[in-house]
């Protein structure tokens, strides 16, 4: 699903994405987003920030309230505030206009990739009262299912799979987002915060996702189960 008020860009996006074998729904107004979203149940949403009717950040919140679908923001502003607002509203990734077609496709594909297939050895990870079920794609604390977006799940899993390793933000960007040469660490920071707020007992004193000052992040006390 592509949400952009610029008809020409939307059409161009549709041409390119269709060329890649995808089906595309076009939406040009923010207040029509939910209607189309509910009808078509897309695998991924490309969402412009500036929309008539309802702005992209609000639309993003509405979608996130109903679904864990990957959301990639299209933004004309590289400014931190807008980017962070978008990410906090629930977007998984963002791409700044004007972008390379290849870059856009890489990001979209990274979001659509199913990470579970990469993990064959263990089907369940458990640590600090939180269990990650790789088959069911579920995270639980006790009996409660914690709703994570696919990206959050991937990020958590990337850390959890190698408990000892300290991941730099760049390494996480490459592994989870599919970036090659980017040092946009805001993306990582915002998502780490989001994961913490969902899985940690006290997000201000994280036990599961730990910051290694000056380097990056690593997983706290994991125990692996077959």
């Amino acid at each position, binding site marked *: 699903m592509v949400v952009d008020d*610029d008809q020409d860009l939307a059409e*161009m996006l549709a041409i*390119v994405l269709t060329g890649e074998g995808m089906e595309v729904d076009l939406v040009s107004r923010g207040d029509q987003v939910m209607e189309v979203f509910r009808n078509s149940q897309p695998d991924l949403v490309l969402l412009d920030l500036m929309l008539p009717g309802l702005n992209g950040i609000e639309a993003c919140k509405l979608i996130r309230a109903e679904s864990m679908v990957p959301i990639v923001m299209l933004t*004309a502003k590289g400014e*931190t505030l807008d980017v962070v607002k978008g990410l906090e509203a629930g977007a998984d990734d963002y791409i700044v*206009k*004007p972008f390379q*077609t290849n870059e856009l496709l890489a990001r979209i594909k990274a979001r659509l990739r199913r990470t579970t297939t990469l993990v064959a050895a263990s089907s369940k990870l458990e640590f600090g009262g939180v269990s990650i079920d790789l088959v069911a794609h579920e995270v639980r604390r006790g009996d409660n299912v914690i709703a994570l977006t696919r990206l959050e799940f991937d990020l958590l899993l990337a850390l959890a799979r190698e408990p000892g390793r300290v991941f730099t933000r760049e390494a996480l960007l490459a592994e989870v987002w599919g970036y090659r040469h980017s*040092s946009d*660490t805001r993306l990582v920071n915002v998502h780490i915060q989001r994961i913490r707020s969902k899985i940690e007992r006290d997000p201000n004193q994280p036990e599961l996702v730990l910051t290694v000052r000056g380097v990056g992040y690593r997983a706290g006390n994991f125990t692996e189960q077959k």
Partner: protein
Amino acid sequence: MRFTNSLSFRVLGTTLLLSTILVSTLASVLNQRLGDGIRESKIESALNESQSKLFQTENRFALAEITSVADFRDAIDRTITEFADTKGNERNPEIEILQANSKSTNFYLYERATNQISKSSIPIDLRKKVLASKELQYQYGEIIYTSSYSTPVSFEKRVPALLVGGQFNIENFGKFEMYFLYSSAPEDATISLISRTLFIGAIALVLVLLFIVWVATRQVITPIKGAAEIAEKLSAGDFAERMQVEGADEIARLALSFNEMANTLQIQISRLENLSRVQQRFVSDVSHELRTPLTTLKMASDLIYRQRDNFDSTISRSAELLTAQLERFENLLTELLEVSRFDAGVVSLEPEVVDIVSLVEKTLEALNPIAHGHGSTFHYAHPSEPVMTVVDPRRMDRIFRNLLSNAIAYGAGNPIQVEIRTGEKSIAIAVRDFGIGLRPGEELRVFDRFWRADPSRERIRGGTGLGLSIAQEDAHLHGGIIEAVGVIGKGSLFVVTIPRDRSEELTEKLFALNL
């Protein structure tokens, strides 16, 4: 508030000094004149009284029937006793009657005095003057009281006094001197009372003057103080305050023109703020409005570019040019927007703790393919330990990218040396190329926008002319600086120096700026 800095204290100080001088001069002159007047009138009355008493005494002896020495002695005794009877009143003089030319300090046979006063109370020179003249003589001296005539001096009391003397004759007994010793204690008491009164009055006058001046200064200073306080608020950015205008005097005019100034300032500043807001708004709008069509353009050109093999050579080349120029256009747009953000002052650092060594390493890796394309290789010298510091990694990356791109573009395919040095307070990164270099005077101009090393020379592809200018702004944002030096034909050296603590000034020189 310090005393020396306060106008009211300065005015009070001056007032105190001047009024003290004035009042004390006035008081001492007054004191002098009053004292003199009192003493003069005392002398006058003393002379009159002495004269009459002298006549009285002379007449007494003339009229008395003195037939024997015993009669004479009685007469003298009575005269003295009569005068001595009035004792108790300070205004009445002590009397001494002396025989002319009696030189001894003890009393002679016919010499008498009231109240046991010593003969030595009368100085010799006064006696000489008295004997030499028929007129009364006077001078200041002392009344000396002794305990008795016979015993040697065992008790002595001296009282300052006016001494008046005259001579008279007694038939058959010769010339006698008569002295009137007026104690000056009453006058002295009066004079000292006057002095004390004047002194107290002077102090009171000075105090009253000070108070008056203080009140007067308050009237002027209070509005001035108010103006100063409001001016301070204005400079702190609070434009709500105004001075109160009362009446039509100078203070009111001050308040009026002060308020006018504040109004003008407020209007100007809000206009500037508005202008800056409009500019930011404009930048943001341009950003959005240009970027969306550019995205469409790029996607379209990408699509064509990827299928260029299906077209004939001219169209395929056109597709390549279209793509390349779109990229250049995009870079230009990005950098222009960045520059305008710097100008609008809306940029901010996003500092993180990073290792500069690996940050430079990553930039070098990213630019390696381009360097190879120009035939250049990077040589990287750095400390073996990571160099951790707090910087905005995106901006630092952009600085290195710009410096390295510049070195590649003008490096003539020669190797490029990159070196990191660390000091106690700063970190410096040098980028040295061995290309075309810089002419004298160009070291500063390289950071000018759209400036190119040689206008006549062929433009380097892809360059925007803004890279070094942006790099310099980025360095400034970190509290650092980029310096350049170059020699024609030998290449150039660019040194980025950033302080470890952004708030501190750069003092260290880690690289010598010469080739």
